[in-house]
């Protein structure tokens, strides 16, 4: 298998030990293929023998080139699709956020969160207070009655985060949630997400094609190769939080991972 594990820096974390006892998500030998376009009956292997654990409270980023199967894997973990082979177990139903905020435009910011609460079975009398608490958590205290189209891109993603947190899942899946935002807003949201993660103790599986983003956020970076998607390599990131995108340690590891990613992509050019 192509999986190698390199540990950088000091902190090997206790995540690996904790995973032996329990998990937020356990992906075992998962493969996924789709009917190949243009052929009859042919199949395109998108994910090949993925084995991956996310420990409770762990922050894992899944890194890979566009089209390598990151979203496919996340959808499988979210239960929106079934794997062709292998098994996926999660600790309860995970929450999922998308690259587009996916907030419902017929509801207010608060309404979106209350819908998540309602579908989770939270009684009506508690929903308003809980929605306001969650908006507070993403620092959008005044946004309760705002319509989606009245919010900026960054605010929408924060409401989407609050809505996902409203599901009270043990595991939060995020599919390139900040890819469409400008650099400054994205940087701010990185800090917010880190803070929310540390305050709530939720496990996060965060998909991105941005190496710096992956390193800035994660305790563990998992690099996916392309066609088929396999786990190429993993890095444990022991840098303390809060981190900054311009930290030298973040930059150094990013350079190393980028090299590896380039190598992965170059391999495809050769054959």
């Amino acid at each position, binding site marked *: 298998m192509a999986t190698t594990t390199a540990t950088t820096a000091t*902190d090997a*974390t206790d995540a690996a030990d904790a995973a032996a006892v329990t998990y937020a998500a356990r992906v075992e030998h998962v493969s996924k293929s789709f009917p190949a376009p243009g052929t009859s009956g042919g199949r395109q292997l998108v994910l090949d023998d993925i084995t991956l654990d996310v420990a409770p409270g762990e922050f894992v980023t899944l890194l890979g080139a566009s089209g390598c199967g990151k979203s496919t894997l996340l959808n499988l973990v*979210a239960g*929106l699709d079934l794997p062709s082979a292998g098994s996926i177990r999660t600790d309860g*139903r*995970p*929450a*999922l956020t*998308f690259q*587009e905020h*996916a907030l*419902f*435009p*017929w*509801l207010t910011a608060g309404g979106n969160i209350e*819908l*998540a609460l*309602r*579908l*989770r079975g939270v009684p009506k009398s508690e929903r308003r207070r809980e929605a306001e608490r969650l908006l507070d958590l993403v*620092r959008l205290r005044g946004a309760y009655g705002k*319509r*989606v*189209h*009245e*919010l*900026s*891109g*960054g*605010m929408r993603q924060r409401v989407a985060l609050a*809505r996902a947190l409203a*599901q009270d899942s043990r595991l939060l899946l995020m599919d390139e949630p900040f890819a469409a935002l400008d650099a*400054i*807003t994205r940087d*701010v949201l990185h*800090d*917010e997400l880190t*803070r929310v993660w*540390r305050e709530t103790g939720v496990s996060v599986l965060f998909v991105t094609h941005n190496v710096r983003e992956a390193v800035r956020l994660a305790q563990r970076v998992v690099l996916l190769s392309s066609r088929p998607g396999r786990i190429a390599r993993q890095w444990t990131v*022991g840098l*303390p*939080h*809060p981190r900054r995108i311009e930290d030298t340690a973040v930059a150094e590891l990013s350079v190393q991972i980028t090299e590896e990613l380039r190598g992965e992509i170059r391999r495809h050019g050769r054959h």
Partner: protein
Amino acid sequence: MAGTDNGIAIDKDGAEDLAGLEAGLDALDSVQVGRTPLRETLIRKVVPPVTAVALVLVVWQLLVWAEVAPAYKLASPSDVWGEVREAWLQGTLLDYIWTSVSRGLLGFLLALAIGTPLGLLVARVKFVRAAVGPILSGLQSLPSVAWVPPAVLWLGLNNSMMYAVILLGAVPSIANGLVAGVDQIPPLFLRAGRTLGATGLREAWHIVMPGALPGYLAGLKQGWAFSWRSLMAAEIIASSPDLGVGLGQLLENGRNNSSMPQVFLAIFLILLVGIAVDLLFFSPLERRVLRRRGLLVAR
């Protein structure tokens, strides 16, 4: 890990920094939505149609003065006005209107109650869509007048027959509008709904119906127009003393009496009801839905 005292202290300072930065970004990037003042709305929305109506009246009166057609063919505005006054003074004007409007509304509500679940089924169940979808689209293009003769034979000359004709005209429009609305829901919303745990009826209620609302409303609007047309057709063709005088019968009576003012009166009232329902009910509703979703572009 980062849980040292030092780390937390930095974190607090950083947090204040971050909050300030964030507030700045939010303020810079949010959309300000204003409402146009009432006066401006009046000038832009009310004055033009009033001018148009006035112009039509003037041209009409000019044609009458020019005697382009004999008086029994072309009634003058004052003759028609006299007819309105007379009907009003006799107390029958509102009866005519109410007879038809109450039928139309009840029929429309029935069509709503049937068309909505039907549309939802067609939109969401593949087999039903394949089976019923084409028939529904076909029915929509069938002029509902065609249903009057069979309805009379099946049900006789009574109110049920009127309702049957309304239903056959309006149900396909409402169902098709809902199907179109459901098809326009971005798949992302459905996936988001499913991850939130909305499945089955809860998905239909919380995600599909509100997501399809713009298309559904367009279908309702068309459904009402079809209800009203079908009803007028039914009233004109099938008149009977037990049915009371609605606007369709009024029109038909006018023809039988060769009373052009009465014919004009009936046509105006039919038109008026159609416009009024659209203007007072559907248009505001549609605008409200679109505005709340930020889909209404101010022009």
